[in-house]
């Protein structure tokens, strides 16, 4: 592997501006991590327009910092207040809060911070090796491969996300539908444009993301009653004991590896991997009854996993141009605003951007490790900022911001419409994530499918004879048929006693 671009990446990161934005990013990340109701996707969506005047590398370094910083921040409130700041730290509540009640809040936070650091770092190292490998296939990725990849992505997004499966499917279908709006890019025919030139190029991704994630979340958070937050018990004994470390080292390692792989999967990401890592530890443990009552592994595993996943989800985005989860979709939008179309050529064509962003994560993780423990008290105090103060400010930033992206009043309208939709979706228990991802993947799927068929002269068997697209389609079939097969097997096994249960 050629190390020169990797080292050049470090010079990029160590530029004072980039260091500063990295710091700003992780601090904002920690803050929104602490605040329940405002997630990293929402924050990044709201801050998107602010990145216009900044260098691409610098902008993405900051946005990435918000993402993984939030994983650290979310832990703090989970442990201290039993109030998960992020969906990805929900499972940390079980054992983290139990530990806090035993007076071991410091231990829990310390283990979480160390686990996050290790998980993040393992993931970055793996990313550094895997991404150029994938990029090596760059030119082999033609329309047929993208078709298969988009198909697989949409399937995974709508089936393995952590919420209700039917609702995720409905949301994904709505996203696919929205992707059809605009002038047909093959024939010039108008589709659902209602003679409005603003719709000629289709719905723009940025206002949709800002509306669904930004405005929608703000509106939804406003509705929740805000309790006065109790001052947390003083946090002491941050450095975990040797025994705690020994007990959790395995969990940290396994969590990191699991998180890395789940992060790459479309629809995976931090939340899913923290859940999976927690249940894996519980299943492996010789003393599963300790879980929920203050087991350090119960904090270590999900915290390592969610950070590893947050980092590894950059792989599909930066190498294939396919966002694996909602936050990546928003960062995808940020790259588009900067005039960079992420894809297989990114590593080669823009090594400064690629390695600058990747290497900034090392620095960011170190910053977070340093900051997270001493600043706990400060961050908890943020919780006292009332939503009634925060909400109008963020709404204003969102609306002004979206206008500045394309100087379009129409886009402000779009944000409001999608903000209302996002609010309703949240209220009815729909995750807007699959909608946004299916929207991005949908246009990718349609145009590449049609391109492929043009190239194959209408012969669809072409998809199966090309090695990469053939393999991807085989995986697609496996994912579709896998659950069916296991259901069949389960039924055969269970026919004698009683009707089969829903497979897990």
């Amino acid at each position, binding site marked *: 592997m050629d190390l020169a671009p990797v080292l050049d990446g470090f010079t990029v990161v160590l530029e004072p501006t980039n260091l500063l934005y990295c710091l700003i990013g992780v601090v904002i990340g920690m803050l929104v991590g602490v605040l329940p109701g405002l997630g990293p996707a929402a924050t990044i969506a709201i801050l998107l327009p602010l990145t216009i005047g900044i260098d691409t590398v610098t902008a993405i370094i900051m946005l990435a910092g918000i993402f993984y910083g939030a994983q650290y921040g979310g832990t703090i409130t989970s442990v201290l207040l039993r109030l998960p700041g992020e969906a990805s730290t929900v499972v940390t509540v079980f054992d983290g809060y139990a530990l806090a009640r035993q007076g071991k809040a410091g231990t829990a936070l310390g283990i979480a911070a160390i686990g996050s650091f290790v998980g993040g770092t393992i993931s970055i190292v793996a990313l550094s090796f895997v991404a150029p490998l994938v990029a090596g296939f760059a030119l082999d990725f*033609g329309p047929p491969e993208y078709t298969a990849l988009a198909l697989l992505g949409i399937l995974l997004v709508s089936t393995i996300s952590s919420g209700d499966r039917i609702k995720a499917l409905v949301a994904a279908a709505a996203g696919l539908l929205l992707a059809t709006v605009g002038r047909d890019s093959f024939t010039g025919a108008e589709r659902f444009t209602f003679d409005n*030139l603003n719709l*000629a190029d289709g719905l723009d991704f940025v206002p949709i993301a800002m509306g669904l994630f930004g405005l929608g979340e703000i509106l939804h958070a406003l509705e929740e009653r805000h309790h006065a937050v109790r001052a947390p018990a003083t946090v002491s004994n941050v450095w975990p004991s040797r025994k705690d470390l020994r007990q959790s080292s395995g969990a940290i390692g396994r969590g990191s590896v699991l998180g890395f792989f789940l992060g790459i999967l479309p629809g995976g990401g931090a939340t899913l991997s923290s859940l999976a890592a927690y249940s894996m530890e519980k299943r492996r443990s010789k003393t599963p009854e300790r879980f929920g009552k203050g087991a350090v592994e119960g904090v270590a595993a999900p915290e390592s996993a969610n950070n590893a996943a947050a980092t590894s989800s950059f792989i599909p985005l930066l190498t294939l141009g396919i966002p694996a989860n909602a936050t990546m979709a928003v960062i995808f939008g940020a790259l588009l605003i900067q005039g960079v179309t992420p894809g297989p050529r990114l590593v080669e064509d823009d090594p400064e951007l690629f390695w600058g962003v990747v290497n900034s994560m090392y620095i960011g993780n170190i910053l977070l490790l340093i900051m997270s423990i001493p600043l706990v008290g400060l961050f908890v105090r943020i919780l006292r900022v009332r939503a009634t103060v925060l909400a109008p400010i963020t709404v204003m930033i969102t609306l002004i911001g979206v206008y500045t992206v394309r100087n379009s009043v129409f886009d402000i309208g779009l944000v409001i419409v999608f903000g209302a939709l996002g609010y309703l979706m949240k209220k009815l228990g729909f995750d807007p994530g699959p909608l946004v991802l299916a929207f991005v993947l949908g246009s990718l799927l349609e145009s590449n499918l049609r391109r492929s068929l043009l*190239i194959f002269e209408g012969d669809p068997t072409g998809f199966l004879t090309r090695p990469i697209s053939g393999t991807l389609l085989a995986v697609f079939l496996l994912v579709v048929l896998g659950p069916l097969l296991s259901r069949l097997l389960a039924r055969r096994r269970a026919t004698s006693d009683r009707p089969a249960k829903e497979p897990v």
Partner: protein
Amino acid sequence: MTQTNRVRRGTAAGLGVAAALALTACGGNLGGDDTADAESFPDGPITILVGQDPGGSTDLIGRAVAEGMSDELGVAVTVENRPGANGALAAQQLAGEAADGQTLMIFNGSLGYITPLAVPEDEAVDVNDYEVVTGISLDDYVLVTAAGSGFSTVEDLAAAGRPVTFGTTGVGTGSQLSQELLFNQAGIEATAVPFDGGSPTLTAVLGGQVDVGSIQLGEAIERIEGGELTPIVTFAEERPSFLPDTPTAIEAGYDVPVQQSRALVAPEGTPDEIIEQLRDAARAAFETDSYQEFNENNLLTPNEIDGEELQQRWTENLEQYRSVVEEYGIDLGGAQ
């Protein structure tokens, strides 16, 4: 006390000078038959609309022109990106602006003489509905193929013994038109595969996903010089100075001159005096070394012609393309 007085006196003197200057300025113009508009022009900052995304070639050209004009006019000239519908959205916005020369636009030739062939009539934008300040520059299209494809001339493509696939940078673009015309005239059976812009088209050609593609010269030159792409023909009437060894399509025996052209336009009804002032400012900008270096670096051929001439050429282009397209039964879009 003394100090206050001095300050006051200073202010008064300053005001006096300013008043005198203002009077002289007015006096100088008294003989003219100007409307109030033209006299006070430029009245504050000028906005140049660009109908493409920031960072693209049209945007860069807009910024280079804006910079030079700003120095000349002594007011800020800012570029405002209003991307959408090949630039039709920006053109629509410009048409609604006051005709006072404070809002201008970089108008792409393809919007005027190619897009109308691909979109419904009511969406076609006509450059004759605007006041053209000046032409700016021309951009060449080059037909390229991957170095290992085995093709190097149009004859090679004709002798391929199978239908050829060609990548275009989108529907209603010069990239599409140039290749449709070439392959139809050469009698080569070929399928168009549209991509979203120059960079994805380039990647597809490099990866052998499509056999050939027509790309703006500035986007392809690096790979041509690096030996990754083989240029087959260019589509201008004469060989561009940047690629002297590649024949034009006309030399190869086909009548398909297609170029991208750009112009600075103002809303219809803008007073002639203002147009003239803008033209002078633009001309002065074109003369600067930094602008000429910009053209050189981006492989742009200056085309700094007057508005009338430009409108005439573009209209001729449109008519010519329309008739060839009909002659060969080419359908650029499906919506005609």
